[in-house]
């Protein structure tokens, strides 16, 4: 029997703070802060969210059981404590004690029944697009008002990695107003409560007076979130004082912004992880490990990041620092064109070869088209001659998908991405692009690898819920993946910069993409 008590486990933080960061030191909530975001959530209902951008709004009003903290630890948040009972290792149980005294915005106390209700909504495929994340939970047991257990059919490591998955949703309020009204006027336990929303324009929030966390809470009375999709306009709005805080400063303008008086910035890694994927399924050069290693040595990523991204990217080797499975012994491949050409010659391609190289041009990340073009141009210098095919997002994702109905890569290269998150966990991403394709099981839906050893390792790791053992298993996969350059050559994580009026606003960055726009700790230095 092993019963593991988990408190706040330390996780290293991969964060670069470039500007002045002010600690909130305000006594009372007052005034309004205007912020501008480049993208907008499509929903305010945590059970219905479909993409990372949805957490911009959801995370201001709703909370989970665990939360990554600014200092890099994972804190028990709405969970006062929790543990994994592995008495039966094939059917583990997660036992959760809820923090007492937490209330929803309407004053209702948070209870286990609310989490049971959340579990039901989040596991319903007619409601949630992530219902498969609950598929390993066999049943939800309420022990008492502040205590519940999740009984698993089989071990599920991603459940722990994703902060115990469940969002706190108010059962009584939902049943009173119904699904649609809940989506229009959401109520959670978070630091901000809903006031009004105009789609494509703004979300107006008010501080939750009875918020449970006295230490980490906003110090402003109102928060007005404006949506400004154009980068330059967003920056202009900060310069003119129409807004006090903006996200996603475009890389090309970063130096200008940093040189302005009274503007503070914070730069943090995004949760997205980019890589150059290689189709190793059909006969061709990419089946040869030396060719893949040659490609890895043939691209000067540091130079590309510096010149194309203005330094707004950071390299990683399989797993970013701070994420589960991070291996400090792994270093990104160094740029060594001579070695690359030697490896190509050893692989039987002394004169190089021609290859299709697919490039995403829809700006899912800053300058993504130019980044791909630069990488493919570098490959040309070692003899890997790319026929570059630029693609918009819809066509690009179709091409990468392993599906009988879609065209395949034909042994080519493709610039690809798969978020591992921050602090991050690579297991789900690797299950998608490193595990072999298995129709109907969710494995390898975007994989161009067929390696039974990786399949075994990934499936084993998916069942390990205990963090240390899991870290070891993921490191082993990462090391092998790195050496064989399979499932993609890892290239960089984009960096994202927030900027704010430092004379007016006090802001503590929470350096995780899911939380940096939640405004957990923001206030006015002098109330308007």
């Amino acid at each position, binding site marked *: 029997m092993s019963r593991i008590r988990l408190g706040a486990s330390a996780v290293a933080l991969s964060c670069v703070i470039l500007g002045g960061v002010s600690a909130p030191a305000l006594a009372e909530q007052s005034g309004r802060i205007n912020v501008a975001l480049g993208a907008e959530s499509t929903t305010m209902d945590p059970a219905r969210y479909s993409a990372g951008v949805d957490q911009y709004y959801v995370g201001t009003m709703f909370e989970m059981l665990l939360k990554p903290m600014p200092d890099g630890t994972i804190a028990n948040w709405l969970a006062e404590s929790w543990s994994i009972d592995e008495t039966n290792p094939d059917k583990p149980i997660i036992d959760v004690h809820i923090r007492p005294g937490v209330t929803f915005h309407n004053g209702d106390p948070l209870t286990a029944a609310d989490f049971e209700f959340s579990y039901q909504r989040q596991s319903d495929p007619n409601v949630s*697009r992530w219902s498969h994340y609950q598929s390993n939970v066999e049943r939800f047991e309420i022990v008492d008002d502040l205590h519940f257990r999740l009984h698993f059919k089989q071990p599920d490591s991603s459940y722990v990695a994703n902060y115990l998955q469940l969002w706190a949703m108010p059962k009584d309020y939902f049943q009173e107003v119904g699904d649609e009204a809940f989506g229009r006027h959401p109520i959670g336990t978070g630091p901000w409560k809903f006031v009004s929303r*105009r789609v494509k*324009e703004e979300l107006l929030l008010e501080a939750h007076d009875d918020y449970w966390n006295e230490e980490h809470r906003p110090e402003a009375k109102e928060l007005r979130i404006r949506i400004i*999709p154009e980068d330059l*306009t967003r920056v202009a*709005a900060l310069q003119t004082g*129409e807004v006090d805080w903006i996200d996603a400063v475009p890389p090309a303008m970063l130096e200008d912004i940093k040189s302005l008086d009274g503007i503070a910035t914070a730069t943090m890694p995004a949760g997205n992880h980019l890589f150059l994927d290689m189709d190793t399924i059909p006969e061709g050069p990419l089946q040869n490990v030396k060719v893949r290693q040659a490609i890895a040595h043939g691209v000067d990523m540091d130079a590309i990041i510096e010149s194309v991204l203005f330094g707004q990217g950071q390299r990683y080797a399989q797993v970013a620092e701070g994420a589960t499975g991070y291996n400090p012994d792994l270093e990104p491949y160094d740029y060594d064109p001579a070695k690359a050409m030697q490896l190509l010659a050893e692989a039987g391609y002394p004169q190089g070869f021609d290859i299709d190289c697919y490039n995403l041009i829809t700006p899912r990340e800053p300058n993504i088209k130019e980044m791909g073009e630069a990488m493919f141009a570098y490959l040309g210098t070692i003899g890997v001659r790319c026929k570059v095919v630029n693609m918009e997002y819809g066509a690009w994702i179709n091409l990468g998908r392993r599906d009988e109905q879609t065209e395949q890569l034909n042994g080519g290269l493709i610039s690809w991405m798969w978020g591992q998150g921050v602090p991050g966990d690579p297991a789900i991403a690797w299950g998608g692009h490193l595990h072999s394709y298995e129709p109907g099981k969710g494995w390898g839906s975007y994989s161009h690898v067929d390696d039974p050893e990786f399949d075994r390792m990934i499936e084993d790791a998916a069942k390990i819920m205990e963090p240390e053992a899991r870290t070891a298993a993921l490191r082993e996969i990462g090391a092998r993946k790195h050496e064989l350059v399979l499932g993609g050559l890892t290239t960089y994580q984009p960096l994202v910069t927030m900027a704010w009026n430092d004379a007016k606003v006090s802001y503590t960055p929470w350096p995780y993409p899911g939380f940096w726009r939640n405004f957990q700790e923001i206030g006015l230095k002098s109330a308007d």
Partner: protein
Amino acid sequence: MTQFVLRRVLQGLFSILGASLIIFVITRLSGDPVVLMLPPEAPEALVQQMRERLGLHLPVWQQYLVFLGDALTGDFGTSYRWDMPVRDLIFERLPATIYLASAALAFSLVLSIPFGVISAVRRGSWFDRFAKTVAMLGQAMPNFWVGLLLILVFSIHLEWMPAFGADTPAHVIMPAIALGWYPVAAQTRIVRSAMLDVLESDYIRMGRSVGVPEGVLVWKYAFRNAAVPLVTMMGVYFASMLGGAFVVEVVFAWPGLGRTVVEALFARDFPVVQAGVLFAAIMFVIANLLVDLSYGLIDPRIRHDR
């Protein structure tokens, strides 16, 4: 007249139906929206379940009939991306777009009418050259660039104008200029050449000879006759501004329909794209119908019942 209107309405309905069919088929050719809606690791069973929930498993012709049937009752479905009724999404955005397009059209007319008329009256003068230059600048500069330039000058440096949003009447000024400057050149040319023709006509010469003041001749008699081609062009430009304000809407964070539809296009949000195109087609038809009807008001010699 009634017959003419009925005939044009019927033609318009066919145009709208044709546009709806084309956009319906084209959206289906763009790929599977479910792939973009679900996380990449979602099992195939969930993908299939989602397709069935959205009705995407049905043959395209059947999907189209369902869409048409629902549209006739005012139901344009639910946005895949926003999970809200498309009708709400479109109707909430439409007034902002109509407001912006109207302001842009007004701006373009405020410039192009005096430019065209005075250029014709003072042909070859410095004003003629000045008007041509201003008008051509609008056509030569992309509207997103004009927009950013306006923000730089009037918001950041002079601090006269708000940089974004749609909160007050002042907010529409810069987007209207960015959107409305482009047609100024074409409209000025049309007015100028029509005025040159009219000013050479016998009745103007007769008016001059009997001592009708020049201002009255130009603005009351000549311009009225020269306005018919301008009205035709206005109709077309107004309709295309309704559907084509996307770039300006993005630059100024204007909460309009164009931005909504183009974003929906990238997300393969079929119901929003279909409804957006349908509304744009309806706007085109209405604008053209109004233009046709206005001819009779401007020039009583034009009668539709002949």
